Every structure is written in structure tokens, then in C-alpha cells.
């Protein structure tokens, strides 16, 4: 086919610019919003997903990880006695107050672990070692929150809930969904930092033996340990994510913004392709008079839509990559996993082709006799 679609599209550069601007805006807005959604999702459940545990044991009616309720640590021994349990460890995950050197206070989430156990260790360490948490008052936090908490380097001493805390290391990329950063420390320190009684814990993490029947182990734990809930890691992760993303409405808000981006892109592309079609309506009439079937004319319009989609997607993704990279330094990371980037291409294509349907309807009803009017 002679390049009628491309030529018509590039003929009016101003209109093409408007079309591409609309598509780029739409692509960037959708990527940012969906990227925030994925970023938020990862942040809400990061602590659970990186725990290395198979089960999370909580008090009853704990809807998400930040809402833990303390229970007796004696239940740990009961859990360890259940066949199929290879390992079980206590865990603190709870809010408390951090005092900066300037006297100001911030809320932080203390994560108290058994330093000798592989479960729930801080990950992506860029300074220090996990074993450093064995020293008294030792804490590790993410470098992202240095400024917020007034930390300039390792070795500095701060006050957490009236107790001494010494920074021994930093991680990279461990974000909290709330404004309260995670602070990793030993279980003992965590009890002090959170006013937790010595005979209590907030969670028990369970690692199953190789080949153990997860369902059976769960039933056995529930039968032997009273007043607890047993969730698989993925289950508890989903519950926590669902709470933060949907019960609070945060996730719905970004999804609505993403949908809005799609609508804006659709409207802009529909309007500009329709205007281009009307500009060239006589040509389409001539095509039909020459004997072109409707499908041939549709193909010209669809090609215009597809070319706009490809160029707009390319430019939009270029901008999006910059935005995503810039967001990594901020509190709210925008993630762009490869499947999402690929999916965006097809969404952009669908948006543009869908928008072209308005023009398709117009050319379908062209009266070829119009070509005889001078």
C-alpha cells in the first residue's frame, strides 16, 4: 500500500504534535500511577515477603503486619513442638518514637529479630553486617531515611523510646509504605524500644521442614496453640497489601488516576485523528469512488492510529524511565516491571485504535458521490 497513512499523519506537523503530546501524557500518567501502585504494593508487604518464613503466627484479628497484638512467648515452644516445623522465631514489628538530635521526634517501625536466625534479616545491606546487630543498642536502617531521622553516618547514637540506639549499618531500597521507616534490631532491643514485656512477642515466624504438608502443619498449630491465627506468608502479605491499598483507599486513588490518564489519552487521540480524517474526507470519498472497500479505508485510519501509538509509546516510555529513575531517591518508589512496560505498549495501541473508531464510523458513512461536487 502506498504510504497514505504515514504521509497524511506527518503532513500536519502541528496536529501530529498534539496527538503525540496526548499519548505521551497518557503513557507517563498511567506508568507513574501504576508504578506507584506496584511500588506501594511492594512497600506494604516487603517485610513479609522478605521474611523467609512459610507461616506468620499472629494474635487473633490482626489484619495487617503493622497492627500486631502482643501475646505470650511461651507459644513459641508449642509451635516448635509441632511436627513439620523446622524453625520458629519470635518477631517484633511495632511502632515507636525516634528522637532526632535536634529534639524533634519521628515515628519508626521497629523490627526485632533473632540475629542468629536467617528469617527476617535486613536485606540489601550497603554498609555494615547483620551480625553487628548483636552488639548492644545496635540498629540498622535504610539510607533513604537518613535525612528524615537526622542520621549522617554509622556510629551515631540516638534515642528510641527513651533507650539508647546506635546505628551500625544501612540498607538500600527497604521502603515502608507508611511514613515510618523500618529500624532493624535484635529482639531484646526491640522489646525495650517498644515497651514489650520480656515474656511477649508480636509474631512468630515458622519455617517448615522439607516435604512437610503445610496444611497439616497449620491445622496442628491451631489445634495446639490457642488464640492465634496462622497465615501463610503470601496470605499475610496479601492481607496487608489489601488493607493499605484498598481499605485505606490509597490504591484505589492511584488506579483512578491511571484510568483518568487513559481517558485523557483516548479523548485527545480520538479528537486529533477525527480532525485529520475530516481534513482528508474527500480523499477517502475518492478512494471509495475508485472502488476501495470500507476495509481498505479503515486500514488507512488504523495505520495512522498505530503509528501514533508506536511513536507516542516510545516517547512516553523515554520520559517514564527518567521519572522512574528519579523516584528511586524518594520515599515513594515508582516501579516499572518489564511485563508492565510491555503491557503499556498494548494498552497504548488499544487506546489509539479504539480512539480511531470514531473516525471509522465517519468514513463508513461517506457518500462517494461527494467526489462529484467541485
Amino acid at each position: 500500500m502506498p504510504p497514505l497513512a504515514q504521509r497524511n499523519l506527518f503532513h500536519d506537523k502541528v496536529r501530529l504534535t498534539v496527538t503525540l503530546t496526548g499519548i505521551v501524557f497518557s503513557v507517563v500518567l498511567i506508568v507513574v500511577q501504576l508504578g506507584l501502585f506496584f511500588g506501594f504494593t511492594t512497600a506494604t508487604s516487603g517485610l513479609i515477603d522478605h521474611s523467609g518464613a512459610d507461616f506468620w503466627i499472629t494474635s487473633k484479628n490482626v489484619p495487617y503486619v503493622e497492627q500486631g497484638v502482643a501475646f505470650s512467648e511461651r507459644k513459641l515452644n508449642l509451635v516448635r513442638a509441632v511436627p513439620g516445623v523446622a524453625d520458629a522465631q519470635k518477631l517484633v514489628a511495632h511502632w515507636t518514637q525516634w528522637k532526632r538530635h535536634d529534639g524533634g521526634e519521628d515515628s519508626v517501625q521497629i523490627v526485632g529479630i533473632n540475629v542468629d536466625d536467617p528469617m527476617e534479616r535486613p536485606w540489601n545491606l550497603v554498609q555494615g553486617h547483620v551480625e553487628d546487630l548483636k552488639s548492644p543498642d545496635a540498629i540498622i536502617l535504610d539510607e533513604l531515611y537518613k535525612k528524615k531521622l537526622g542520621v549522617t553516618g554509622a556510629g551515631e547514637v540516638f534515642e528510641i523510646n527513651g533507650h539508647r540506639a546506635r546505628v551500625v549499618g544501612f540498607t538500600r531500597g527497604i521502603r515502608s509504605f507508611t511514613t515510618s521507616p523500618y529500624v532493624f534490631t535484635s529482639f531484646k532491643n526491640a522489646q525495650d524500644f517498644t515497651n514489650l514485656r520480656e515474656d511477649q512477642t508480636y509474631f512468630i515466624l515458622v519455617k517448615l521442614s522439607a516435604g512437610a504438608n503445610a496444611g497439616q502443619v497449620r491445622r496442628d498449630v491451631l489445634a495446639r496453640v490457642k488464640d492465634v491465627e496462622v497465615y501463610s506468608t503470601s496470605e499475610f502479605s496479601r492481607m496487608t497489601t489489601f488493607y493499605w491499598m484498598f481499605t485505606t483507599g490509597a490504591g484505589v486513588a492511584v488506579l483512578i488516576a491511571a484510568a483518568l490518564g487513559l481517558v485523557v489519552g483516548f479523548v485527545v487521540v480520538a479528537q486529533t485523528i477525527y480532525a485529520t480524517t475530516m481534513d482528508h474526507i474527500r480523499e477517502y470519498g475518492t478512494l471509495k469512488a475508485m472502488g476501495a472497500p470500507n476495509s481498505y479505508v479503515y486500514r488507512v485510519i488504523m495505520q495512522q492510529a498505530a503509528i501514533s501509538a508506536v511513536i507516542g509509546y516510545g516517547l512516553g516510555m523515554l520520559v517514564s524511565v527518567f521519572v522512574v529513575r528519579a523516584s528511586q531517591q524518594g520515599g515513594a518508589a515508582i516501579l516499572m516491571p518489564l511485563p508492565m512496560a510491555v503491557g503499556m505498549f498494548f494498552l497504548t495501541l488499544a487506546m489509539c485504535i479504539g480512539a480511531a473508531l470514531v473516525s471509522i464510523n465517519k468514513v463508513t458513512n461517506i457518500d462517494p458521490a461527494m467526489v462529484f461536487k467541485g
Partner: protein
Amino acid sequence: MKTKIQVRDLKKAYDEGRSGTLALRGVDLDVYSGELLLLMGPSGSGKTTLLSIMGCILGATSGSVRIEGREIVGLGQGELPGIRLSQIGFVFQGFNLFPTLTAGENVELMLDLKGVKKSAAKKRAQELLEQVGLAEKYGAFPSDLSGGQKQRIAIARALAGDPAIILADEPTAALDSQTGRNVMEMLTRLAHEKERAVVVVTHDSRVLDFADRIVTIEDGLVATNDEGEKKQAAWAALVQAHSLATPLVA
């Protein structure tokens, strides 16, 4: 001479509210291969409507129109494009070239509609442009061409489908005398040398000499249908009756 188009008792009504307008009121006409036929008449007489129906662009209200023996009245809208593509070539008053395509690409477009592969289409387009004397303008855009050149490109495009019938609507209206003559000479050659049926709707008396036959349409009916010397007289009568703007040119 073979009958290419046969029209019998053709009627066409345009519905305008409750009182419909009868543009054609029972036209009978035959168009033969190898002839250039002029369809003339005052504005609103129905000649463009007749051309549109013969060109399978407009549907008829009643009557019969046969293209190469095939009845087209009553055919569904989906069948008419195929007949146009295979049997009929159009030449328009406004040229109707695609401004964003080159002269060669305008001709290739027609070939693409017929399913000709790109390399073969390019070659055939070059041949057609040679036939109309514009081979060197293959890569030129319509905006770079004169009116006469555009019309010759349009004729080359009309020929690309190798049609048996060429329908031209006021092909010389936008052209000066000499250019108009050149275009009519080309259309005449197509009729006489290539055995095509060429029908030209026109107000332009400058093209009378090229016609093998003149059919005048008045008020939706064939008024005169004359060959040879009688065609001049028919045109003169028409001018006198309707005070047409274009005077008779010897």
C-alpha cells in the same frame, strides 16, 4: 462497437421532506465501446446524477442499468465497489489526487486496490505516466504540478484499473483552452485506439469537436442524442433554450 452501458427507463428520486425531487425521470441511453460521448445539459438537468448511477456510485430508484451486460440496479452496496474497481475509471473536475502522495504513488494506489504487488505496481505506474507524457513527474507531488498535469495524472490513475469504461465529470472545467484540448485529445485516443467507452459530462462547448456523440439532458430526460453534424445543432439549441454561459466555439 459493443454496448458497454445500457440504461433503460432510469428514474432517480431524491427525498427532500415530503416532496421528493425526481432528478431522472426515465432515461434511456446506450454507451458503446470506442466512442467518446458528451453528456451535456443545464445545471440541475440530472447529468451528474446519471453519471453517478452509471458509475455505480449512486443507486437508482427504478429502471435498469447494465454494465457490460450485468444489471446493477438493485445490487447491494457491498457489490458496487467491486464493479467500480474492475470496470470503471473516474476522472474528476477537481482532479481528486491525494496531495500527500507523489504522482507515481497516486497511480500505484489504484493498482494496490486491485491487488497488484508493489514492484509490479511501480513498473505499471511508470508505464501509465509515460502514456500520458509525464514519466519525468513520477516523484512530483500534486502541489508541484499544473492543472493539466494533474488531470493527466488523474487519467493515468483512472487507466490503472484497465477499465472498459471511463467516466469523466467536467474534466476540462479547471483548465485553460490548450490544456483542455490536450486532455480531450487523450480521452479521445483512449476511446478510439483502446476501444473504451468514454463518457464526459461537460458544460464546455470547447470540447464539442472531440465528441462522437452528444446526448443532452433536460429536466431528467434525454432531450437529444446526436452524432455527426447534428450534434452541433443540438448544442446550439440547448444554448439558446437555456442561455448557457459558454458560447458555441467553431
